[in-house]
């Protein structure tokens, strides 16, 4: 972990316009929850639905995509990464720092809003709110690692990430149940499911499968990012 790299990364991510972009979806989630509560539509089923569909299935992957690719992708595209890489710093430190920043951002802009929305909608009933918060955190860590790796490997990281989140996880998951097992989103739901007693949260993947898969995916993605960053060559500017 390197404090200077973290500082630069935070400053670039929280620059005026990008911060607004990061705030948009979480604000929508919290406002929707507040509105539902105001009109009294906040029973446990609605709460579970909002937290799962909005929190886990939309907010989490999109925020992780913005944060995960944003902490390193633009820097590689614009060439500023040279200033970090021309220092006697092991590349794994660079990757781990970028990943840590992404995870902090996902915590701030996905996990905390999920917690707030849950508290507004369901309080602590059936421990559903903390369950979803932990689920979002667990999924957030895996998503961040995958998207950081994607940004190191490909210049089209955002597009590929969107295709994965929207097409693979959402669309194919609905039609081909098999695709659901290979989905970070479902693993996150599995974690939430295991922590709450309510039957409104159901997951298709058992916790015993989801947890090792989350850990393995995170580790593999982080390692891939380190290996590829070590051999990052500038596509000749000529």
């Amino acid at each position: 972990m390197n404090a200077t790299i973290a500082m630069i990364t935070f400053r670039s991510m929280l620059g005026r316009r990008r911060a607004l972009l990061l705030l948009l979806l979480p604000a929508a989630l919290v406002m929707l929850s507040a509105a539902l509560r105001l009109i009294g539509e906040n029973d446990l089923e609605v709460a579970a639905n909002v937290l799962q569909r909005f929190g886990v299935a939309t907010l989490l992957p999109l925020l992780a995509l913005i944060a995960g690719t944003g902490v390193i992708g633009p820097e590689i595209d614009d060439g500023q990464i040279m200033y970090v890489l021309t220092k006697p710093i092991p590349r794994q430190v660079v990757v781990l720092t970028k990943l840590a920043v992404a995870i902090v951002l996902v915590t701030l802009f996905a996990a905390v809003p999920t917690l707030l929305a849950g508290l507004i909608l369901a309080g602590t009933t059936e421990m559903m709110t903390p369950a979803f918060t932990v689920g979002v955190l667990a999924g957030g860590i895996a998503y961040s690692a995958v998207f950081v790796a994607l940004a190191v490997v490909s210049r089209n990281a955002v597009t590929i990430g969107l295709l994965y989140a929207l097409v693979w996880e959402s669309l194919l998951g609905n039609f081909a149940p098999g695709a659901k097992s290979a989905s970070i989103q479902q693993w996150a739901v599995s974690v939430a499911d295991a922590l709450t007693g309510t039957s409104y949260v159901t997951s298709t993947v058992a916790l015993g499968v989801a947890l090792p898969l989350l850990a393995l995916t995170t580790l593999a993605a982080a390692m891939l990012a380190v290996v590829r960053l070590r051999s990052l060559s500038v596509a000749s500017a000529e």
Partner: protein
Amino acid sequence: MSELRLEQVSRWYGNVVAVNGVSMTIGPGVTGLLGPNGAGKSTLIHMMGGFLPPSSGTVTLDGAPIWHNPDVYRSLGLVPEREAAYDFLTGRQFILAMAKLHKLPEPGAAAERALGLVEMHYAADRAIGNYSKGMKQRIKMASALVHDPPVLLLDEPFNGMDPRQRLHLMDLIRRMAAEGRTILFSSHILEEVERLAGHIEVVVAGRHAASGDYRRIRRLMTDRPHLFLVRSTDDRRLAAEIIADGSARGVELTDKGLRVEATDFQRFTLVLPRIARDADVRLWEVSPSDESLESVFSYLVAR
């Protein structure tokens, strides 16, 4: 005193060969890497800076390989050609961050020293995004100098600079070299390299074309057969006189005029008016027909 050494270095992208079997040793002082655009200068600098592995051959700094070896950056400073720095940081924040990334014992003092070297104190608290091109070049220079490296690589450092900034940077580079540093900079402008570099390496089309001090390179470039197009009142007669004089290797009569291949640039330009006067021929036009840098360079390669 540090030494960069390239041995039989080649680099290709797919089927395209960007650098072909280049060997050179770069020692203390200023070395200019001269070549036309697209000759492979940037590819060479990227390999020396550890941003590109050579496809074959070795690139070493004092015997240590540069690729996959972040430790070399303790003794290597790199000024990339691309402008992008962290635009949202001020100059001072940027240089201080670079000093911290190098884990220097006194990053604050090192940053101030580097800012002083490039005379950027006056703008150090402005955001880099608002800098002019010359100021960006200088702040990039400061970022490469902050850890006082014995080796400095600069990729086209004078691009886009106005004459005053150019002189200032040349001055700075000379001072750095006088302290015993090994400095390599690339350029496609002969005059730039001539004024600054004690030693010149010429690359053309990925090949190492020539090497030496500027006098040697200058001589190589002027002591070559030069092509002239000459139009006059009596081309045929003038051709005969030029041949008789012996200052041309060949003369060709074309409908556009005489194509003369002179053996010696300076002698031919001196002697031609005299020949014409003596032969009572009036000259309409004398124009060198291949003075582009490109043709000068390609002569060196073909040699």
